[in-house]
């Protein structure tokens, strides 16, 4: 009996709903899996570090300084994580706006993934703020700062999280067996999608725009006034690569949730996503060239940072693009996954280059993240995966919605 049926079979008295929820909170499946055994100690350590951070301040656990106020948590968790969450707006755009129904089976899992990414990575922002309670300021209007990019990002994050929650909410309603709520919520989906796409396109580039203010600090090979556009375009293939990668893991880990018809369709979806990635990366690569020429940064090429720039451009843009191209042509799903992983590495490298490696590159006091920052970063990711897993095991995300949804 699946969960939703369970929910219905219980009369919707408040007590049984309560016991249903309590029951659902318990872990399902084996507890001592290799993943749990590795991740649990990291999370425990990470939580301890987070507590220390809030008691003794940022300096206690991180190597952040006044000169380098943005470290690993922002550069990796926020800036990179949000790029990976870009799959949600691309997929919802394709399904709800372009009406490409064949991608419908991956909408929920992608939106869930995007939603959790935002919740956790925006959550990571709190860790990073010297005065975390000030995070509410842009919302409540304490010194609105309307001309700041951060203001825009704060609002976009908030609104986009709400939009994604609405997009995902029919699955929650199905889980709880709330038919009326589901009807209302699914009626709101299209509106939320349109709203969400607008927001994401704006703040994907907005995240890039944050760096416009740091012109003197960022290495000229990575700084340009076009960072917003580059961030936006790259979030397309970053997000889709994440969909390919996350899909191939999910379909292995949660194979019990997926019926065979979907399993077969997945190859077609992955295959056609590879094509979109190829084209987006082709365009992105040329934008990078134009950008490079425009900045007249030739003299930097023959330096250490220049070589690193070439590694990023050739090894992590051109190469994965060629891999996508080749594997799309050969319909080689394994190779498409490889290309997706290389692309994701490339995105991590690119975002870190802008936000950490190329940031204050000529400064005497170079920033290197402390081990504690790494542990906290990992903790955030692992807890997100735990929550993701918890949701997948309970709500109809990968599996078919309960029968009453169709019978209406």
């Amino acid at each position: 009996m699946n969960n939703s049926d369970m929910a219905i079979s219980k009369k919707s008295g408040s007590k049984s709903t309560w016991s249903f929820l309590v029951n659902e909170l318990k872990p399902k499946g084996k507890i001592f899996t290799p993943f749990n055994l590795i991740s649990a100690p990291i999370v425990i350590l990470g939580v301890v570090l987070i507590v220390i951070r809030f008691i003794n301040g940022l300096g206690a656990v991180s190597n952040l300084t006044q000169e380098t106020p943005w470290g690993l948590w922002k550069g990796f968790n926020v800036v990179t994580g949000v790029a990976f969450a870009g799959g949600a707006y691309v997929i919802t755009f394709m399904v709800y706006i372009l009406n490409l129904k064949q991608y419908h089976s991956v909408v929920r899992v992608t939106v869930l993934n995007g939603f959790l990414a935002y919740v956790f990575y925006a959550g990571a922002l709190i860790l990073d703020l010297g005065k975390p309670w000030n995070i509410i300021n842009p919302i409540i209007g304490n010194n609105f700062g309307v001309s700041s990019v951060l203001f825009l990002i704060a609002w976009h994050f908030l609104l986009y999280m709400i939009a994604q929650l609405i997009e995902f909410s029919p699955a929650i309603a199905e889980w709880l067996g709330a038919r009326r709520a589901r009807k209302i919520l699914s009626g709101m989906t299209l509106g939320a999608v349109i709203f969400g796409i607008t927001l994401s396109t704006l703040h994907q580039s907005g995240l890039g725009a944050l760096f416009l203010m740091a012109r003197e600090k960022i290495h000229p090979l990575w700084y340009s006034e076009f960072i917003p556009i580059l961030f936006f375009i790259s979030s397309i293939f970053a997000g889709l690569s994440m969909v390919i990668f996350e899909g191939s893991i999910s379909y292995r880990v949660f194979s019990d949730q997926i019926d065979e018809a979907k399993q077969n369709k997945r190859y077609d979806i992955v295959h056609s996503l590879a094509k979109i990635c190829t084209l987006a990366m082709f365009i992105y690569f040329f934008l990078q060239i134009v950008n490079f020429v425009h900045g007249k940064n030739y003299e930097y090429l023959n330096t250490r940072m220049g070589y690193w720039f070439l590694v990023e451009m050739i090894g992590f843009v051109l190469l994965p693009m060629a891999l996508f191209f080749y594997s799309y042509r050969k319909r080689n799903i394994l190779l498409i996954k490889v290309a997706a992983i290389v692309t994701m590495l490339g995105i991590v490298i690119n975002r870190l280059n802008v936000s950490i490696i190329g940031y204050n590159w000529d400064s005497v006091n170079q920033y290197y993240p402390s081990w504690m920052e790494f542990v906290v970063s990992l903790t955030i990711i692992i807890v997100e995966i735990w929550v993701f897993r918890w949701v997948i095991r309970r709500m109809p995300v990968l599996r078919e919605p309960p029968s009453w949804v169709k019978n209406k």
Partner: protein
Amino acid sequence: MDGFSYTNIFDTKGIEYLVVIAFLILIVPFWRALNKPLKTKEIAGDALGVLTAAMLRIPKGLFYSSNHVWTHLERSGNASLGLDDLLMHLTGRVELKNFKNPGERVKKGDLIAEMTQDGKPLRIMSPISGEISDVNENVESEPAVLNEDPYRKGWLYKIKPDKWSSETGNMVMAEEARKWSEGELLKFKDFVANSMIRHAPQTSEVILQEGGELTDYPLSGMPAEVWEDFQKGFLNIEE
């Protein structure tokens, strides 16, 4: 030379324009190359060890029964029969045993031979009824001919058919046979996915359609349970 002043376009926007023009010129062939129909793969499939419908040998003059046995009525009035190329590509090298003897009578659906690979058996049923007039003993001693030449040297029996026209009525020929084979191949892909997940989930990805294509001889290397499922799904004759 009054009025002529040289501007170095490369110092200003020249190269940027050239890059943009190069992009516009390149994106057309790039897009076309990306969208070219996927043809080369099917031709190359044979060499790459990939099993595709295009590489199957399906002679047009034979009748193909749903259990992957072909049959052909010769001028002598005897019908020869054997195993089709698709089956041989799915199983790979096999051994045949338990042949019937000349003079025995078989009915449609009777067991006429057993095929084994590393102890995993498949039963071959007769698609027609009649009296066996000849057995190809060659295939017992030299089973490789089944893979190399399934339609000539690889024949199994010659049978004097009782009800040739009624029993071949359901069989397919020529283009229809090709379409049917393509369908069987697709059906097999689904079958692999389902059966492997049930019986050997940890290895299913290896053989299963990575890249949407089967490798040659996908059944070899699969566990006996899968062979049993295969028997039910592909080789049994429904009466």
